[in-house]
């Protein structure tokens, strides 16, 4: 069970919680579960969400495994100049 920390814009979707516990083996499954449990998550995902796993930020590698005790943060997908 991974503890997934949310940035402020996502918290209203989950009733104001700072984080949610999700049983997911990788980023793809994490997004699938969050979308199923919280339909309002979908538009945020469409706009782009990055996942920080133990400090390394993943934007596109949805196969990346979520280790059980990993530090996980959802972050906005950052643009560049």
């Amino acid at each position, binding site marked *: 069970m991974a503890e997934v920390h949310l940035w*402020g*814009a996502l918290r209203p979707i989950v009733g104001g919680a700072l984080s949610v516990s999700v049983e997911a083996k990788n980023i793809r499954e994490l997004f699938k579960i969050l979308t199923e449990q919280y339909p309002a998550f979908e538009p945020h995902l*469409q*706009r782009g969400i990055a996942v920080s796993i133990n400090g390394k*930020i993943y*934007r596109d590698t949805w196969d990346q495994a979520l280790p059980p005790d990993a530090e996980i943060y959802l*972050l906005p997908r950052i*643009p*560049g*100049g």
Partner: protein
Amino acid sequence: MPLDTHFTNQKFKQVGTRPLRPDGVDKVTGRAKYGADYNAPGQLIALVLRSPHAHARIKKIDTSKAEKLAGVKAIITSADLPDLTAGDRGMRDMLENCMARKKVLYDGHAVAAVAAIDQTTARKALKLIQVDYEILPHVTDVDEALKPSAPVIHNDIFTEGVEPTPTKPSNNNKRASFGHGDIEQGFRDADIIVEHTYKTEQTHQGYIEPHACVANVSPDGQGELWVCTQGHFVYRNQCAALLGMDISKLRVTASEIGGGFGGKTHIWTEPLALALSRKANRPVKLTMSREEVFRCSGPTSSTSIDMKIGAKRDGTITAAHGVLRYHGGAFPATWAEFGAMTAFACYDLKNVKSESIEVIVNRPKTAAYRAPSAPMAAFAVESAVDELAKKIGMDPVELRIKNAAKQGTQSSYGPVYGPIGIGATLEAAKNHAHMKAPLGKNQGRGMACGFWFNFGGQTCCDINVTPDGTVTVAVGTIDVGGSRASIGLMAAEELGISYDNVRVVIADTSSLGHNDMTDGSRGTFSTGLATIAAARNAIKVLCARAAKMWDIPEDAVVWEDGHAKPAGTNAGNFPPLSIKEIAAAAGNTGGPIAGHNELVADGAGVSFATHICDIEVDPETGRSTVKRYTVIQDAGKAVHPTYVEGQYQGGAAQGIGWALNEEYIYGKDGRLQNAGFLDYRIPVCSDLPFIDTMILEIPNPNHPYGVRGVGETSIVPPLAAVANAMSNAVGIRLTHIPMSPPRVLKAISARKH
């Protein structure tokens, strides 16, 4: 600082050298082809009719007179660009920004476009198009737009990120927050608190080359686009989607690029050129004027930031809180969110909160600008930190060192840092000769830190070994700052051949798989990763061919210094085969030799910088001159140090211009007043001193050579570094960027009285 020992004493033969730039001769001799240098046989010239109003309803567009003008071949309005976006708000906004639909949302918003046999005819045609507007109230200021009395620009925007969702639409499209700890307790624990509201004005990236393209769509539905862009694959995908074309049928070829800095990551006129070409059945060339670039491409946000930082008398920061309001122009965006993420990232803070408020105004759609949103946030934070140091009576570098983030720090945006370079840049600044140099009359010195994320993305690369053993590398990321040189060096390093025997080209969109654009300081990082992998794949093929030539097993061959060699005495006693010899024999050993790679490059590694600035202020006029400037930044590993230094210098120069002069000025009528380089003053060489650089190399553990992106971070500290220098020069804390002579003079006069 603990480092990944994998990188210790790593020896390179090519990486880290400074060969001549591969695009140098073409650029200085005029051979290089930029966007407007392309021409197609029988091409038409297109011009765009733009709104003179900041906010108005389009009641009617009558193109009938223009259509009758001899030489006019096609006219388009939004009616020619049906909405195919299927509910995708981002794509719909992109379409609406390219061509206004029911309303114009800013001065310069496109309402129609004409393709004619020449520019004179096209200009005459624009004058014959009649647009009936109902003028609406407008708002261009980021704070004014949030007031209850402000005209609401979009009736379908309800603030996201708050609970419950508002029932009334507003110009605030989103709120978000980041942070941890208890800021209220942190401020109670503070001995000294600094609190100010800071403002920054809207600036443009100021790239020298205007947007330009030639579009050619055939009646069979196939199309070509030659365009100046930071991301031709992205342009292809977006244009095809908006025009209802199959992506594979649109081939996009990128020109050389005369600067982008984020401004060429969005499509602007390209769909119009394609739609005109489709309608006219002729090639269409569309080039923006400088005035159009200012009025209708994508400058950065203007901002208003509330900043509060508290500390103990020993300099320990106990709490930090920022509320950041950024506008996204006339469309919903999330620029404040990125400012909030980066604001406090340099520091190890127990209690921190940054809140973002996104604002919609009647200005052109905001685009990315080099480390987008970070410079404004850093201006507020670093100004407040400097003032805090002053109030405590502590050296500002020491205060920053005391509070600097390090490996293991929980960042203000959430995750815990791995190996990072902020501490190293601060220590280097503390010990730099610049810090000890004497100052003259009316001069002041300031310093500031900055942070940027960097990222990777989708990338692919083809390496082909030619029959004479030299190598071509085809990549899909535009070379905006020297990536052809750095990619060539990495290919040469892996293959063990001379850099001179490698040619890197930017392939068109039909020649490679999708590549994300060149942004986020990703070009050298991500395309470098793909190139290294492709080279290693090519080496496998080269070894296999050598094995055939020697008639030994493939796994009995190794690659060293550009040669295949038998792996040990059991493999046989053969003299090494050079890449030239293997390539010459390729036709009889299996055909062409190549290496390919496709990947998603994650793990770009965050980047930090510290800048030092000396400024002299004329107290009679308020005019300021930067006398000395030093950039210290972590590059992970500088592949081509001269280009890295160029990136550091370029970012600093842009930041200095932003700090001192650059500013979009809107009249009360909502029209831009200074849409040209005479009235919008960017610094030129004679305005600046030589910008000194110091490259630190704290390896990125996610790259085989330790490379980090270097293109953006250098624009983050200058606004604050200049402001802190100004404060020390004239004894006044300026909280409004740019610190132009009138503003400085006003502040000096106010102090006297």
